[in-house]
């Protein structure tokens, strides 16, 4: 196939227009003409951290002023002399100490007794519902972030990314969303002298037919080129991320924010929360270890972002909380209500938001913390106030929004 362009091969590849394949890949063109830095201002970058497995919100933001908590958690509780007290009633787990300065500065806040109203205690259903944004309903094929992105600004190469090997459900249905596990390793593995020729050949091979596989191939070439050109991934601005998926993921998100590539939404996962046994106590054990990783990763992310934290809102979620009463194996079974943490310049931090239902037997939902704040209200408020979303009924169909007042409106 002839090409009329006389520019050099490497240049063509950068544009995803490998010789011989250009005519087959016209949809790449808008993707490389991305916004100048600043053009995407007016919307925060939203970072969604999914704590997979069912995070125990009662261990993270501890209702230590409630006697029922201490009764239900004889082996695994955070004692009054260990908790990082917030307001005499709630306190942070001591392993979240890295978040204390951010909490005190009002950059980190929490919403307690939040979650998805669907009663399921299945990991897989609960995650699926939560990420679709339609609890109890799987009739729509797309995720809540995909629906929001379809309605918001676009045409930047790194508009939406799941730092993962598979695209999270919340982003499915939004074609430009990328799943990339490692920005540093996102390049074709061929010897330097042969890289262009191999890339060209592959691009041509995937030039037809027009199906999902060809589209992903084209997107891959465009993304490789943009990454190499635009995103330095070395400067961490002194931040020390913990080892693990969350630290790795947030470090890469920070690189994209600093690179001004138009990042709108990023999803990062942290697993390991399904502690049916051997949670340990406040000073030692698996729960303390997970919370240490969570707290230090968020703190490192804030440090890495520096003044760019004003353009970012991070929110954590988990498919459900854990049962109030610990089980006989020193762990907790699947529960319901949970805590959501928020980090960012627009967060009304330093406080536990929401309506606390209490832990008395009649206040529980099948033995679990009741839900008084629908998680969609937290996410919806972030979208409306920080990302200029003006019709939440498109993002969360069938849900009537209620304000939580956990973020302030973005100025500009």
């Amino acid at each position: 196939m002839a090409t009329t362009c006389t520019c050099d091969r490497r240049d063509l590849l950068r544009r995803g227009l490998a010789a011989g394949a250009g005519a087959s890949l016209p949809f790449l063109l808008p993707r490389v003409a991305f916004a100048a830095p600043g053009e995407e201002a007016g919307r925060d970058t939203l970072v969604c951290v999914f704590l997979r497995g069912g995070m125990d919100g009662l261990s993270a933001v501890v209702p230590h002023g409630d006697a029922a908590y201490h009764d239900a958690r004889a082996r695994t509780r955070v004692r009054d002399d260990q908790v990082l007290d917030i307001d005499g009633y709630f306190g942070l787990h001591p392993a979240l100490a890295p978040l204390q300065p951010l909490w005190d500065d009002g950059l980190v806040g929490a919403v307690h007794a939040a979650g998805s109203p669907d009663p399921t205690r299945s990991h897989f259903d609960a995650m699926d519902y939560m990420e679709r944004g339609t609890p109890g309903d799987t009739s729509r094929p797309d995720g809540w972030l995909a629906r929001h992105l379809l309605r918001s600004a676009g045409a930047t190469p790194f508009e939406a990314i799941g730092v993962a090997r598979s695209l999270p459900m919340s982003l499915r249905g939004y074609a430009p969303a990328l799943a990339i596990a490692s920005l540093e390793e996102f390049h074709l593995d061929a010897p330097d002298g042969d890289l262009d020729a191999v890339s060209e050949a592959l691009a041509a091979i995937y030039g037809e037919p027009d199906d999902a596989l060809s589209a992903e191939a084209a997107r891959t070439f465009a993304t490789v080129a943009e990454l190499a050109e635009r995103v330095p991934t070395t400067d961490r601005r002194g931040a020390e991320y913990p080892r693990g998926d969350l630290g790795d993921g947030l470090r890469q998100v920070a690189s994209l924010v600093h690179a001004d590539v138009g990042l709108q939404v990023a999803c990062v996962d942290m697993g390991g929360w399904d502690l049916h046994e051997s949670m340990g106590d406040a000073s030692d054990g698996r729960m303390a270890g997970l919370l240490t990783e969570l707290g230090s990763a968020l703190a490192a992310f804030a440090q890495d972002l520096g003044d760019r934290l004003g353009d970012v809102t991070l929110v954590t979620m988990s498919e459900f909380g854990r049962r109030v009463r610990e089980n006989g194996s020193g762990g907790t079974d699947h529960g319901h209500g949970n805590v959501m943490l928020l980090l960012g310049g627009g967060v009304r931090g330093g406080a536990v938001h929401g309506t606390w239902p209490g832990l008395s037997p009649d206040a529980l939902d099948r033995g679990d913390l009741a839900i008084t704040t629908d998680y969609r209200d937290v996410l919806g408020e972030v979208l409306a106030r920080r990302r200029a979303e003006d019709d939440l009924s498109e993002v969360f169909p069938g849900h009537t929004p209620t304000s939580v007042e956990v973020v302030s409106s973005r100025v500009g």
Partner: protein
Amino acid sequence: MALTRRALLGGAGAGAAALLAYQRLPLAPAPAPSVAERLPGGGQPTGPRTDDDALHAARRLSYGATPSLHAEIAALGVDAWLDRQLDPASIEEDPQLLSMLDQLDTLDLSPTDLRELFSDQEQRRRIPQQLIAATVLRRIGSRRQLNELMVEFWSDHFSVFLGDGPVVFLKTIEDREVIRPHALGRFDDLLVADAQSPAMLVYLDNALSKGDDPNENYARELLELHTVGVTGGYDEDDIAAVARVLSGWSLDRATATFAFRPFLHADGPQEVMDWSTDGRGGQQDGEDLLRHLAHHPATATHLARKLARRFVSDHPSDELVASTAEVFLASDTAIAPTLRHLLTTDEFRESSGVKFRRPMELVTGAFRALGTTLPIEDLGRGRSQAFRQFVQRVEALGHLPFSWPAPNGFPDVAGAWLNTGALLSRWNAVQALVGAGRRPLGPVDVTDVFGDARSAGAAIDAAVSQLLMTELTSTERDAVLAYLGVGANDAFPADDRTARQTIALLLNSRHFQFR
């Protein structure tokens, strides 16, 4: 008494206020492209279709079609070949595979010997290394390909995560004594054996469950994942009852074997969906419940759908699922007749080109196409560099056997495996495996692939017929010729590097991404 509190509104502190000053100037966002502009074309990815039933069977019912497997199926006829595969004991195993497995000395260790090896910090890694190596070697080299596919199917169905403490050595026992013996046997036997498998007892915590204070982890996944499925008609009370019925199903830690502990078992009447017990049967109550669940119609439907998804398409028809479930129930949960039904339907026969290979299927397919296998030199002593590189590669693909971190097993639909990052990882895995990348994975002999072809066109065609067993489109063929920088009738530049990269391009083409 419920304490109601609402935190102060507008509590953003001085830090946040200071940050707001750094916000960039607001500009109007760019107009949003239309939905159509943002959707990739075509929906489901499509691979090579074929009307040749033997070729379709060779691709779908093995870890990678080869010309010799295709010839074997064509000679026997698909149905006769299938019957042989469904009776794996009738197939003599490949002697080269057996001699390689012989080098893996931890596979046959007794539970107590495995436990002792596990306690040795220096040596313990040999156990998972050898289990993973044996699994990959068998997928590549076994003549009992359908049996290996079912071993994988059940390993996913009863997924345990090797990273969970002692599971790392208990899985060797489960693979050997639970999954493999029952892979084409009866599901009710398999279910009971798995419920008593130390790996499962530890992974889903039933070993710790106490009758007066049960741990629900296994009970929930037993219903949701292993038997009736999430829409199977149970509720939270049923889960709690299952946990009580199976309390006391535990583990003798000294011998690393199943043990029923009466003092941990909850006696008393229990009801689980349409099943009940007076609670005096002890261990037998649990076995009765498991067998009841194995024969439950909802279990039949759940398993039939998963089997159809594995072997036919990501979205099998309801009719195919229903007819397969019927055979499963009518044959007392026997797996072979269920599979025979599924794999002799028109829906199976007409399903070529629709299943996107999962990453390990791509990798094993490449080994098989090249007529080679995983290098395991020195693996017996836990020192194989080549194997370590292989594991890193497959981990990057997210598909290392027994490494899915949740109890639902690796996903089995294209959408879970086809995305930007995954595609690049696949290409790079093949680049490395064939020795075309910057860090080759190990010696792979590529000399046979091109036959004695002299011209570039003939060399490409020879490689395509051996590796892909299809024909390239003219665009694809021209792309390979353009890479070689020659015309079809010019001499094939047969230097080693060019030969390897030519093979990598073919294995990285669309045709090799499907099974």
